[in-house]
C-alpha cells in the first residue's frame, strides 16, 4: 500500500526557485504578481486555483515551485492537460528552465500518441515531470503498482480546468485526484482556469473535500472588441436559419488573403458548407478545414498551416477553440451566434497573442435576430458577465469505471474506498447505498444478476481488498478507460484506401450508392458501404447534401439568454444605439407593428390563427433545452384535463404550441400549468423519456464498462459480443428498473437534457411575472423562426406511441 511521505517542508526548493527567478531574468521576463503569489502559496503547502486568461504565463505560475521542490527533494510532478495536442508545448515550456539550469530532471509527455516502448519505460520509471491527459492518467491508475509509483508525488497541475470541470472527464479526474492524494497525502493540487463565474466552486472541485483552496486571480486586462459584419441592406438577412451564407459576398470582401484568419462556425455541417462556399469564392487562397470528424492528419495539417503561415484561412468548429498557440492568426471571424459568452471570449482570444493585446472578433449574423444576440453578447461582456461551469453530481457510470480501475491499481477495501471517493467534490454527497449499489454492480453484476452466482468481476480477498483477478477482463477494462465516447461513426475512405475521416453512421444509412455529399471539404459520391466503411470517390456533378452530425446544436447559455432579454427590454425603452441594433431596427419596427417587443417585467405570449391551426408563441429566452421541457410540461398538464394533440416547436428564444382546435390560452398557460411541484414527473410523463434515457444510456453503458471494448469498430471475432446499448437498456429495465445505470441515464435526461435547475428557475420566473397575451394577424418576426423550426424538424408531440404510429401511418399511406 501507499508509503506515506512526510509533507514537504515549506522552505524546500527555495534555492532552486531563486535560480528559476534568475532564469526568468535572463529571458527578459519578470515574474508577474500572480506567478509570485502561486509560488508562495505552493511553498506554504497550499493547493488552489489560478484564474487567468489563456496565454498569460500560467504554466510557469503552476509548475515552477513544484519543479524546484522536485529538483531539491526528489519525487514527481504530474501536469494534466485536456488536450494531447498541447502536451508537446507544455513539455518544452517546462523543459526550457530544466535544461538551462541543468536541473537534471526528466520531463516527458505521455498521451495516447506516445509509443508503447516509451510508455513501458515510463511505467517502470516515472519521469520527474510527466505531462499527460486525464485519460492517460486514468490508465496509469490501473497499474498494479500505482500506489508505490505515486507515493512520492509532490503535486498535480490541472491545466484548462474549466474545460473539464462540467463533464464526466472532470468527474473521472476528480476521482483520480482523490486516489492520488490517498497515495501521497502530502501532495498538492493546482488547477488553472480561464474565466468562469463560479471560481470558488471550480477551486473546491480541483482540490477536493477537506482542503481549503487558495484562489489566485490574475488581473490582466485583455480587451476584446466585437464587431459585426453588417449587410448593406439589413433587410436582406433572412428571418431564420443557421447555415446562412447571405453574407458570404460581404465576408469575402472583408477577408484579406494576406492576413491569417480563423473562421469559426458552430456545427460541422456549417463548416463543410462555409468551406465549400469560401473555396469557390476565393480560388487560389490556401485554405484549411478543421472539425472533429476530419481525419487527424488533415486537422494537424490545418493547424501547422496556420502556424507556419502557409494557410491563410481556416474554417473551424469548436475543435480549434482550445489548443496550441496559433500565433500568426491575426483575425477571427464567428459565423452565427456564439451561443455563449465564454465561447465568444475563447474564440476572440485566438487572435492577439501577447498579454494585454486587444483581441478582435468579427461576428457574421446568419439571420436577423442574431444581430440582437451579438449586441447582447457585447453588452454582457462589458458588464463582466460570464457563464458558470458546474461540476457534475456523482455520475455513477464514472464511479463504476473508477472502482474497477482502482481494483486493478492496487486494490481497495470498501470502507476506505467509500471515504476516499467522498473526498472528490462531485461525489461528496454520495450515499452509502449508492456506493454499495455501484460496488455490487462491478462485483457481481448488481441486482439484475442475483440469479447468476457464477458471474464475478471484482473479487474481495479475505482481508476485504477488492481486485480484478481475471487478466482477460483486466485487459478489456484498460481498453475502455476514459469517458470520451464518440458518436457511432463510419470511416470515409477513397477507392485507394485513403481515409478522409469519420461520419455519422445514421447519415450514411440514409444515402444510397451514387448519392453525393460534402465531407472534409470535398464533394463526394458514395460508392458502397462495407465493414463500417463508406467507400467514396470524388463527385463530378456539383450538388450534394451536407452530412448531419448528431448533437451539434448548442443551446444559448443562460447568461447570454438573459442578456438578449435585456437588449429587447432596452429596445422597448428606446435604446437601440449599437450598430447591430440600428441595423435590426426594421425588425423591431415590424415586430412592434404586428405585435409588441418583449418587455422587462412580463413574458410575452403571441397568439394567432393560421391554416395550420391555433398557435401560441411564448418567449422566455431560456435556451432550447429549457423550452423543450417547458412546452412539454404545459402540453402534458393541459392534455390531462382535455385530450388534445399539441405540436411543439422550440428554439433559443421561446416555444410554440400549435393546436388543431381553438383553446383558451390564458388557461392553458395559467397558474396550474406553471406549478413547480411535480415538475420532473410531469416533464417525464409528457415525452418519450424512455427513448431519451435509452439514448443517454449509450454513453453511460460504455463508460461503466458494460459494452465490449471491441465494438462498434470490432474487427471480426468480437462480433458475437456486439449488442446495441438500446437493447441492453431494454433488458436491464425489464430485470431491474432501478439498475444503477438506468437510474443514471434517467437522471441525465432530467439534469442535462432538460437542464432541470434552469427549467425550475424559468418556471418560477414565468409564474411570478404576468403573461402578456397579444393577438397577431400572422406570425411575428420572433415567431417566424419557430414556425420554420417546426416545419424543418419534426416537433415534439404529446401522443403515445400507438397514436403516433397511427398518425405516421396516415402520412405514409397518403404519400
Amino acid at each position, binding site marked *: 500500500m501507499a508509503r506515506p511521505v512526510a509533507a514537504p517542508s515549506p522552505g524546500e526548493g527555495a534555492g532552486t526557485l531563486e535560480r528559476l527567478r534568475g532564469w526568468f531574468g535572463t529571458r527578459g521576463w519578470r515574474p508577474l504578481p500572480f506567478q509570485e503569489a502561486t509560488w508562495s502559496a505552493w511553498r506554504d503547502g497550499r493547493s488552489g486555483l489560478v484564474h487567468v486568461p489563456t496565454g498569460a504565463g500560467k504554466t510557469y505560475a503552476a509548475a515552477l515551485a513544484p519543479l524546484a521542490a522536485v529538483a531539491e527533494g526528489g519525487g514527481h510532478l504530474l501536469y494534466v492537460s485536456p488536450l494531447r495536442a498541447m502536451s508537446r508545448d507544455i513539455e518544452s515550456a517546462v523543459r526550457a528552465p530544466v535544461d538551462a539550469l541543468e536541473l537534471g530532471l526528466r520531463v516527458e509527455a505521455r498521451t495516447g500518441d506516445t509509443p508503447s516502448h516509451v510508455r513501458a519505460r515510463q511505467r517502470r520509471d516515472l519521469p520527474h515531470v510527466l505531462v499527460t491527459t486525464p485519460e492517460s492518467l486514468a490508465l496509469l491508475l490501473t497499474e498494479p503498482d500505482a500506489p508505490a509509483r505515486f507515493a512520492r508525488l509532490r503535486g498535480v497541475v490541472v491545466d484548462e480546468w474549466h474545460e473539464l470541470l462540467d463533464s464526466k472527464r472532470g468527474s473521472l479526474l476528480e476521482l483520480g485526484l482523490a486516489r492520488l492524494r490517498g497515495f501521497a497525502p502530502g501532495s498538492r493540487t493546482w488547477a488553472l482556469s480561464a474565466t468562469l463565474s463560479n471560481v470558488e466552486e471550480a477551486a473546491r472541485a480541483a482540490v477536493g473535500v477537506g482542503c481549503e483552496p487558495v484562489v489566485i486571480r490574475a488581473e490582466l486586462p485583455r480587451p476584446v472588441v466585437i464587431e459585426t459584419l453588417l449587410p448593406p441592406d439589413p433587410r436582406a438577412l433572412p428571418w431564420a436559419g443557421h447555415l446562412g451564407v447571405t453574407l458570404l459576398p460581404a465576408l469575402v470582401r472583408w477577408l484579406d488573403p494576406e492576413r491569417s484568419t480563423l473562421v469559426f462556425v458552430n456545427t460541422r455541417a456549417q463548416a463543410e458548407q462555409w468551406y465549400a462556399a469560401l473555396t469557390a469564392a476565393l480560388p487560389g487562397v490556401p485554405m484549411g478545414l478543421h472539425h472533429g470528424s476530419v481525419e487527424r492528419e488533415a486537422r494537424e495539417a490545418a493547424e501547422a498551416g496556420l502556424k507556419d503561415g502557409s494557410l491563410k484561412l481556416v474554417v473551424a468548429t469548436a475543435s480549434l477553440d482550445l489548443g496550441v498557440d496559433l500565433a500568426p492568426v491575426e483575425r477571427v471571424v464567428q459565423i452565427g451566434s456564439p451561443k455563449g459568452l465564454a465561447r465568444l471570449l475563447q474564440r476572440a482570444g485566438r487572435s492577439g497573442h501577447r498579454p494585454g493585446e486587444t483581441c478582435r472578433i468579427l461576428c457574421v449574423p446568419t439571420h436577423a435576430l442574431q444581430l440582437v444576440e451579438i449586441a447582447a453578447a457585447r453588452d454582457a461582456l462589458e458588464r463582466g458577465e460570464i457563464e458558470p461551469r458546474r461540476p457534475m453530481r456523482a455520475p455513477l457510470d464514472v464511479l463504476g469505471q473508477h472502482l474497477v480501475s482502482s481494483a486493478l491499481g492496487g486494490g481497495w477495501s470498501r470502507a476506505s474506498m467509500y471515504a476516499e471517493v467522498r473526498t472528490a467534490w462531485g461525489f461528496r454527497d454520495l450515499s452509502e447505498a449508492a456506493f454499495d449499489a455501484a460496488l455490487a454492480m462491478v462485483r457481481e453484476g448488481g441486482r439484475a444478476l442475483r440469479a447468476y452466482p457464477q458471474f464475478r468481476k471484482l473479487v474481495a480477498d479475505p482481508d476485504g481488498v477488492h481486485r480484478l483477478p481475471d487478466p482477460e477482463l483486466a485487459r478489456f477494462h484498460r481498453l475502455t478507460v476514459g469517458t470520451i465516447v464518440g458518436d457511432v461513426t463510419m470511416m470515409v475512405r477513397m477507392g485507394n484506401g485513403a481515409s478522409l475521416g469519420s461520419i455519422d453512421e445514421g447519415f450514411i444509412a440514409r444515402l444510397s450508392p451514387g448519392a453525393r455529399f460534402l465531407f472534409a471539404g470535398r464533394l463526394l459520391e458514395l460508392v458502397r458501404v462495407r465493414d463500417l466503411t463508406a467507400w467514396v470517390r470524388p463527385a463530378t456533378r456539383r450538388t450534394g447534401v451536407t452530412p448531419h452530425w448528431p448533437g451539434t446544436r448548442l443551446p444559448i447559455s443562460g447568461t447570454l439568454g438573459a442578456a438578449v432579454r435585456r437588449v429587447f427590454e432596452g429596445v422597448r425603452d428606446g435604446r437601440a444605439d449599437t450598430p447591430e441594433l440600428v441595423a435590426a431596427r426594421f425588425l423591431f419596427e415590424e415586430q412592434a407593428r404586428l405585435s409588441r417587443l418583449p418587455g422587462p417585467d412580463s413574458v410575452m405570449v403571441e397568439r394567432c390563427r393560421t391554416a395550420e391551426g391555433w398557435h401560441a408563441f411564448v418567449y422566455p429566452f431560456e435556451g432550447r433545452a429549457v423550452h423543450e421541457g417547458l412546452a412539454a410540461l404545459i402540453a402534458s398538464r393541459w392534455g390531462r384535463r382535455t385530450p388534445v394533440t399539441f405540436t411543439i416547436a422550440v428554439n433559443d428564444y421561446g416555444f410554440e404550441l400549435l393546436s388543431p382546435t381553438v383553446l383558451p390560452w390564458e388557461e392553458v398557460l395559467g397558474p396550474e400549468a406553471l406549478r413547480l411541484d411535480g415538475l420532473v414527473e410531469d416533464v417525464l410523463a409528457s415525452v418519450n423519456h424512455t427513448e431519451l434515457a435509452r439514448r443517454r444510456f449509450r454513453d453511460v453503458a460504455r463508460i461503466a464498462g458494460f459494452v*465490449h471494448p471491441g465494438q462498434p469498430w470490432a474487427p471480426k471475432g468480437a462480433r458475437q459480443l456486439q449488442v446495441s446499448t438500446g437493447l441492453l437498456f431494454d433488458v436491464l429495465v*425489464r430485470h431491474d428498473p432501478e439498475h444503477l445505470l438506468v437510474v443514471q441515464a434517467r437522471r441525465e435526461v432530467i439534469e442535462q437534457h432538460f437542464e432541470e435547475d434552469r427549467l425550475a428557475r424559468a418556471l418560477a420566473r414565468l409564474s411570478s411575472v404576468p403573461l402578456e397575451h397579444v393577438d397577431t394577424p400572422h406570425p411575428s418576426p420572433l415567431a417566424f423562426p419557430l414556425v420554420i423550426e417546426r416545419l424543418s424538424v419534426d416537433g415534439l408531440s404529446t401522443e403515445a406511441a400507438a397514436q403516433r*404510429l397511427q398518425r405516421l401511418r396516415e402520412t405514409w399511406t397518403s404519400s
Partner: protein
Amino acid sequence: MDLVVAGEGVRLYAERALRWGSTLLVADLHWGKSAAFRAAGLPVPDELEADLERLERLVATAEVDRVVVLGDLVHARAGLSEGVLEAVSAFRRRCPVAMTLVRGNHDRHVPELPPSWGIDDRVERVEGPFRFRHHPVPDPDGRYVWAGHVHAGVVVGRGIDRVSFPCFHLGRSVGILPAFGGFTGSGRVRGEPGDRVVAIVPEVGLVEVERPGERRGAPRGGHTL
C-alpha cells in the same frame, strides 16, 4: 392477424411467430446470448427463461405440432453454459413438440446440437409453396421464402419522438420474421412499394405500417444484427 401468402393462409402473432397450418415458424432465437456476454464479464441478465416460456405458450395456444426455426437458434459456443443447456433440456421435457432447425450463420458455432434437445438439423427446407431458409434471399425456383437473419424492425417518428418496433416484413418473394429472442436488437427494413410491414407495438399488438421505406427523409436508425 391472418394473411394469405402464396395462396396459403398464415397467422402472425405479436409474440414474434407465424403459424402455417400446424407449423409454427420462428427466427433468430439466439439461445445463450446473454450467457455469452456474462462469460466475457459483461453483466447482462438472462432472457432465456422468458423466451422459452413464450415459445411454450405459443405452441399451446397456436395448437401446432411442430416448430421450424429459421436459423440462429444459438448465439455462440461460449453461451452454451451448463445453465443454458439445462434450461433448454428442461424446456424440451415440458414441451416435446417436433423441432426443426434451418441453420443460420450463428449456428455454425455449434456444429452438433446437444442430443437431449431433440432438434432436427437441416440447411434448408422446401415445403409446399414455401422455402425455409435463414438468409432473406429469393428462391431461384420461385417459391416464397420465409427467412430471418436481419432482425426486422421498423423505425417511426423522428428526433425526440423516434421509436422502433420489431416487425414482420412481407415482400413480393421473401417474408422476414422478427427475431424471436428477447435479447436481440432490431434492424430497419427497407421496403419496396407493395411490401407489407406489420409492426409489433408493445401493449397494442400488431399494427400494419405501409411503405416505410418510401417516406421522404426516412428516419435514421441504428442497425444491429
